[in-house]
Structure formats: C-alpha cells, structure tokens
C-alpha cells in the first residue's frame, strides 16, 4: 500500500489509452500494489464500456434514420386514423395504394361524374355504371396475387390472411367510398347515391368469389356483368331512377349479406397458391 494514488486525470488517460508510454508504465506499476486504484480503474472502465454501448445505440439510431423506410402518405393517414403502426405498414404496402392506380381511378370517376353533370341521361347512366365497380376493383387489387409479387413468402407467415384482407378492404373502402361520394355530388338527383348499395354488394361478392378464383378476376367478372346490366337497363327504360327502387336496393343488400357470409365460411381458402399462378 502507498500514500500516493493516481489522480483523476491520469486515471482517465490510462483507461482511455491516451497516456504516454512512460505514464502508462508508471500507472501500471502503481496499480500492481494499490487495491483502491484498481477499483477506481474498474469503475472507470465500466463507464467507458457503457459509453461504448451508448455509442452502439447511437449507431443503430443513425442506421434507422438511413435504412428504415419513411411511412408513405397513406400509411400516415392510416396511422392518423388510429391503426397501429405495424398494421398501417402492412395495409399501405398493397398495390391499391399506389399513386398511379389511384390517379387512374380518379380520372375515370372524374370523366363519369362530368358526363353526368352535363345533365344528359346517358351521362348519369355512365356514372351509375362506373361508380359501383370502382370500390370492388380497388379492393380486389389490394390483395390479388397477381398484384402482390411477394405472395409466396407472405403466405407462409403466421399473420392471419383473413385479418390482412379485411384490413386492406376496410382501408381501401374508407378511401374509395368518400371519394366516389364526393364525385357523386355533381351528379343531379338521387342517382348520386344509387351506386352505394350495389358497390357494397359487389365488394362482398368479390370477397366471396376470391375463395375460389383470383380476386381481380372476380372483380372483372362482376364489373362486366354490372356494365352489361346497366347497358340493358339504359336501353330499355332510359331512367336511372329504376336502380333506386326499394326492392332493387334491398336486393343488393341481401347480395352483400349472403356473399359476406360465404366469404367468412370459406375464409380458409383465401390466399393459397393456386394453378392460376
């Protein structure tokens, strides 16, 4: 034991390896015989160690800033609407949220709404033909294997397919329905809302049909049938009001309920690799 001890500066330089060769040799000679100074060195070294760990954390944060993708506009919207961050990311990845796709949909709706706003009966029929099929096409594109290039690795994860599809469907509808309603405001009369129940029915049909065939094929089939039906109705009666009859609207509601029930019953058939790929 000795009365002399390493002062704080010398000890710090020794621990940080910033001392000179002679100073280091002197410190080591002293530490061989001084228990209190060895304890101080151990304590100081652990502080240095902790600062290294903190440095690693800083490095991780730096890498996060560079590597972690920034949330897209839609992802931020979904998070703003209360969806937890992980699920907002899973939903926003869908092709349906791609800007190009949405711009295309908006362009078609604008054209149909403008045609209707011009006041011609054919314009109103055009809007009635287009508006209900937009939501079902957008929903189908949100989980169709053809538009989901990473289906196979996604498929074998434990995340429930039903939950993913329903989340994407709800998110897409939350975006599409108000948009179509907005376009509908320029359409004269009550026809502006006549498309709503058919749209809900068609979305449910696509969900149910996608337990047998690809969602996009189902949506295209539903759209084709609807366009043909509208064309026939327009050719016969010439009045879009016929779609607004309570009996017709109730029919679409029943179609939606029945289709959604089938979808839930057959949910295990969702998102499987099939010969269509």
């Amino acid at each position, binding site marked *: 034991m000795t009365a002399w001890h390493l002062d704080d500066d010398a000890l710090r330089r020794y621990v940080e390896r910033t001392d000179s060769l002679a100073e280091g040799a002197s410190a080591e000679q002293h530490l061989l015989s001084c228990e209190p100074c060895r304890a101080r060195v151990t304590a100081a070294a652990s502080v240095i160690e902790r600062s290294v760990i903190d440095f690693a954390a800083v490095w*991780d944060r730096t*890498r*996060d800033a*560079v*590597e*972690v*993708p920034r949330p897209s506009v839609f992802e931020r919207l979904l998070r703003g609407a209360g969806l937890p*961050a*992980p699920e907002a*990311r*899973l939903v926003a*990845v869908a*092709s349906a949220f*791609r800007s190009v796709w949405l711009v295309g949909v908006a362009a078609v709706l604008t054209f149909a709404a403008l045609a209707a706003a011009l006041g011609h009966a054919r314009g109103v029929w055009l809007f009635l033909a287009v508006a209900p099929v937009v939501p079902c096409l957008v929903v189908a594109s949100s989980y169709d294997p053809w538009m*989901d*290039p*990473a*289906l*196979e*690795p*996604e*498929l*074998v*994860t*434990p*995340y*429930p397919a039903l939950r993913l599809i329903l989340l994407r469907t709800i998110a897409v509808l939350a975006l599409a329905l108000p948009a179509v309603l907005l376009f509908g405001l320029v359409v004269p009369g009550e026809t502006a809302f006549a498309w709503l129940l058919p749209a809900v029915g068609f979305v449910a049909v696509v969900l149910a049909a996608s337990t047998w065939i690809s969602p996009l094929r189902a949506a295209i089939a539903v759209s084709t049938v609807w366009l043909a039906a509208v064309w026939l109705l327009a050719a016969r009666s010439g009045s879009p009001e016929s779609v607004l009859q309570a009996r017709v609207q109730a029919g679409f509601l029943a179609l939606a309920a029945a289709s959604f029930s089938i979808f839930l019953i057959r949910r*295990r058939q969702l998102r*499987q*690799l099939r*010969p269509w790929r």
Partner: protein
Amino acid sequence: MVTASISLRDVGRTFGATRALAGVDLDLKPGVTGLLGPNGAGKTTLLRLLATALPPSQGQVRVLGLDPEVPAERTGIRRQLGYQPQEVGFPRGFTAFAFVDYIALLKEWSQPAARHAEVRRVLDLVGLSDLGSKRIRAMSGGQRRRVSLAQALLGSPPVLILDEPTTGVDPEQRVTLRTVLAELARTSIVVLSTHQTEDVAALCERVIVLDRGRVRYDGPVTDLTGQAAGRVWLADEPDPAAKVSWRTGTGRYRNIGTRVRDDVEHAEPSLEDAYLLLGGGSPEPETAEEVAS
C-alpha cells in the same frame, strides 16, 4: 430434449391431370438435406408442401409434430418456419431493408427496435449490410436472391426451406452462405433444393434425389458418391460405352458408365458423377401414367 422433425407419409400432389409428387415418405431431422432432381421432378412442389404454402392432395405431413391441415397448427408451424421460394417478386420501390422489415412484421415482430436489429442481423448474414437502403430493383440477380434468403433467416427458425438459394450468387458469397446454413443446421432442419451438386457435396449430410415426383435416392451424400466408384474414367476420346461423357478443361474426356470398369484410367468420382449416373439431369417426358390421374 425432443428432436425437431418433419415427416411425410405417402404424400402426393396433383395439379389437374398432372401428378407432381407421388408416394413420398420422408423423415427429416436437424441438419442440411439437399434436394436434387431435374426440372419438373417435383422439388418445388415438395418444398411448398413442407412450407405450408400448398396442401397435399394425399398423404400426411407433420412439421415439428404439427398438422398443417389444422389452421391453428399451421399457424404454429409458420411461427417456426423460414421459407425462400424459387422466385420472389418484390413490391415496387422497396429497399432491401424495407422488404425484410415488411416480412418481419408479418412474422409478428411488432417491437420496432428488436425488429430493426433482427433485420440488420439477417442482412449482415447474407452480406448485404451495406445495401440495406438500396432499392431492390437496382440490385443484381444475386443480391436479390440474398434479400429473399435474408427474410427466410428471420428469427433463426427451427425449420428452413430454401428453393435454389444459391442461384445467381457469386462463388465467394456461396461459401459464406454455406457457413451460415451449416451453423443454423446444428439445431434447425434445413432443406434446400439446388441444381448445384457442389453445394450439396459441400454442405449436406443427406441428399434426396427426386425424379418425376418420386424419391429416386435418399441417403448420405457419401454413399451416393460411392455408387460412382469405378464407373468414372478419363480417356482421350469419348467412350461409346459410357452413359455420359464430356470434354474437360484438360482436353481429355470424362466418361461415366453404368458398369464398373477395370481396363480404364479411373477418376475420383464426384457427387455430380453419381447424380448423372442415377439419371438426374436428363428429364424424360411425362408418361401416360403421370398424366392420367
């Protein structure tokens, strides 16, 4: 301790009239098992069955004692599974980090710090630590292949199913990947299909050769290689008695025959020789029997 295992009993799979797999019986334990076979032999179908991406048309599959036909048990399998498909598409605009992070979310890594650390770990393992922020579309084929392998390695799963993991990957990276897989195989079941016999020879203890949906060989790699002993020889000209022969870099011909020869200059047989001898690499057209069912 219960050893992790996979078992298949009389497993078959048909697509319409085409039979992709028939009567497959297998038991797999921790270690690396290589799957060899010509195109159309059923390798990808078998891997998809093991990965719960496809149900079998017949027979029984058990992965870690769980039945993939039961939804809750299938989810249980998927929690312990890593799968690299033969072809992986990537969502438009994704970086390597974003893609692996996305799959990690689907694999229930909801805590961001832990998830990001795991994503970095697997990108490091496949040698992409510096390319995490690079867009996948701007990557080479080999780099994309490594991104798809990285997502399969998330969480060091007890079951790892890899469909041609080294296709397009440069030799240096292949050696690195072999090391990674060998380390993981100490505790995990690793099944990989490949056309690279040297990968199987370097990495696998066991090899399964599939041919037209049926298991043609199942056993140690060394035993399969041993089957070619005495049947591989060098000559200055292609030998008409050989089943296969080709000109080597030295200008001499390497011949492989079905009979053991004594009157020739023997060469050390390789796994590739044995595989070719077995008939691998020479797919035959589907017979009526295959297409009938």
